[in-house]
């Protein structure tokens, strides 16, 4: 047998679109300690009051710059970080409160693919142990994973699933290239038959030609195993390619959530507009009028008051620096069609503003019109 039997629900269609994870007011703070007695003098609010849903079967892309909290958010969902507040519901139950057997069962259902294919595989373990270790930990009388033979068979099956040879199980991580190691990382996650996979910058460390191989593989596996992905990346083109819906984070806050096409064509948050305008385009005919943000991302230990983006916001400048931006933290609002934005003046980021600041194309392409261009 080459195709491993999946014990997850074989038909996903009736469930598709229903929320798999409901994240409500999630907060993850890290204490800042100082002095001899290591007194807590403040907090880094890595994830600060974030709410959104991840639907069954979708790829939810999460973008943002380093330090914005996107990885911490994913790790909190996986119960790898201790949340400070809020709830994450799966099948109506708050998984942040899980203990004992519930938690152990949860760990099989939610898995992770790490960014660094070198650092995330133990160099002293052969691949069979790297993949087998998780199986051993999740062994039950039903699945029989406590038996070495069963484990080895399953390891081999999943190596084939990710496009490697069965006998690679005997090899060690250093014998593989970066792309192959990432495949091993994926096999390790999928061998446990998860429903939800948190992919933390899975292709960031890879070359372009290898990156496309891994993206194709992840798309195939999603269909084959009815997976739901939380796909974290800083490369906006990759996120655009693979995601169904996208969330944008800035300094611990989720500032915008929308369907992927909607978000890239009509960004409503000034930060998203700036982020999209900053991406270099490999088509030399595309000449964007660049929106260059001033300054650096502020320290998450001392975030600005009010809207956290107000210190760098171009829209606030255009509007004559309204006081509201620096005093009142904007709540997420629905702009229609599930497009959520946390900005007091999102209406002002109108089509004209977005089109004017983002684009300017010399020769638009015939077969592949850029939606933003079409808008202008």
């Amino acid at each position, binding site marked *: 047998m080459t195709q491993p039997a999946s014990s997850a629900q074989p038909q996903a269609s009736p469930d598709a679109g229903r929320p798999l994870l409901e994240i409500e007011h999630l907060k993850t703070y890290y204490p800042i300690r100082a002095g001899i007695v290591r007194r807590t003098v403040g907090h880094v609010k890595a994830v600060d009051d974030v709410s959104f849903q991840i639907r069954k079967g979708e790829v939810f892309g999460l973008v943002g*710059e*380093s330090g914005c909290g996107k990885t911490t958010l994913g790790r909190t969902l996986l119960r790898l970080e201790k949340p400070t507040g809020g709830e994450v519901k799966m099948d109506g139950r708050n998984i942040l409160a899980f203990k004992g057997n519930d938690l152990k069962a949860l760990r099989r259902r939610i898995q992770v693919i790490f960014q660094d294919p070198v650092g995330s595989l133990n160099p002293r373990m052969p691949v069979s142990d790297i993949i087998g270790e998780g199986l051993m930990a999740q062994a039950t009388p039903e699945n029989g994973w406590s038996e070495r033979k069963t484990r080895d068979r399953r390891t081999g099956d999943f190596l084939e699933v990710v496009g490697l040879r069965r006998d690679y199980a005997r090899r060690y991580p250093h014998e593989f*290239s970066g*792309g192959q190691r990432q495949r091993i990382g994926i096999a390790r996650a999928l061998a446990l038959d998860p429903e939800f996979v948190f992919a933390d910058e899975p292709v960031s460390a890879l*070359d*372009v*030609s*290898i*990156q*496309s*191989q891994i*993206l*194709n593989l992840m*798309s195939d596996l999603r269909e084959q195993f009815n997976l739901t992905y939380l796909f974290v990346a*800083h490369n*906006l*083109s*990759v996120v*655009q*390619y*693979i995601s169904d819906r996208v969330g944008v984070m800035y300094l611990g806050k989720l500032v915008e959530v929308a369907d*992927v*096409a909607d978000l*890239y064509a009509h960004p409503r948050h000034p930060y998203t507009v*700036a*982020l999209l*305008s*900053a*991406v*270099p*385009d*490999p*088509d*030399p*005919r*595309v*000449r964007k009028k*660049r929106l*260059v*943000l001033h300054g*650096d*991302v502020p320290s998450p230990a001392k975030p600005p008051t009010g809207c956290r983006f107000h210190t760098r916001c171009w829209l606030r400048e255009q509007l004559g620096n309204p006081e509201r931006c620096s005093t009142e933290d904007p709540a997420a609002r629905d702009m229609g069609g599930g497009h959520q934005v946390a900005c007091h003046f999102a209406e002002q980021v109108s089509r004209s503003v977005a089109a004017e600041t983002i684009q300017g194309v010399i020769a638009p*392409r015939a*077969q*592949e019109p*850029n*939606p933003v261009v079409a808008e202008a």
Partner: protein
Amino acid sequence: MTTDVQDGTQALRAGVGDVLLDVRDLRTHFKVMDGLVKAVDGVSFSVRKGGRLALVGESGCGKSVTALSIMRLIETPPGIFAGGEIMFNGRDLLRLSDAEIRKVRGGQIAMIFQEPMTSLNPVLTVGAQLTEAILLHQETDKKGARRIAQKALEDVGVADARRRLDQYPHELSGGMRQRVMIAMALSCNPALIIADEPTTALDVTIQRQILELIKDIQTRTGAALLLITHDLGVVAETVDDVAVMYAGRVVETGSVDEVLLRPRHPYTRGLLESIPSQGKRGKRLSVIKGMVPNPFRMPPGCKFQPRCPYQWDDCGTGEPALISLDESISSRCFLHDPRFRDRLAAYDSPMGDPA
């Protein structure tokens, strides 16, 4: 000057008098325990005065080794300059003495490295590191050097430059460190700036700031730019000409518009096709099958042949030369050999738009 017109690099050597940097058939090898690694094996390109050229390729293609060879920052041994020449302002950098190259390095040629944290000295203040280079290459005293350093920081958009001079690298953000690196590179008015993946470690919005800064400075100072990168997006908007590298060789060179819109080499086409974009949503990304060849077991013939979707028998036996197609483009591929004209038709037909 040169009369070897068959050589495709002639295309980029237009206007011989204007050429600032002319790398010809550079071969940088490394003798290591397991054998000889030919990291750079026959690389030729040239940069005009005030020109902008990018060397682009994936990890291990030899682009950084090429840059380090120009700066003579290759340790010998294990490195060996096995052949070629690097003509800069009429002098072969490979033949300069250590003292002479030290004058060029940091003076006439400056380098911006990828990782600003590791390329700045953590135990010296920003000011100390900036003035060191200035004192070495310019006729001035300590006070004057500090003034020049402060001016250099202001020129690259560092706010509060006077205070920054007394800070240590760890007190600065990633973008700020890269600005310091650029200030350092510019402080001695170089004729050529080599930027090795200058924005790879930075976030998108900071990358944008630094790219705009590099472009601005390049036009302001008139220095030539040699950009090393793996990002074709950065190439498209920063430089005029590009040389695509694979397995230690230049496989295609030409103007950015030509190379990125009508790639003549199957590798360049494969790279462009594998970049994810919105138009490819829901479709499979095209991939370049397999991986970069093992440096100890290079395939015979064309180095890209084992991964090439267009390859045929001839590709495995002889290695194609860099064939000049017209003034602005050349490609190292048998497809452009007049003997195989019918195959080129097949290459040209199936796909209209590469990107």
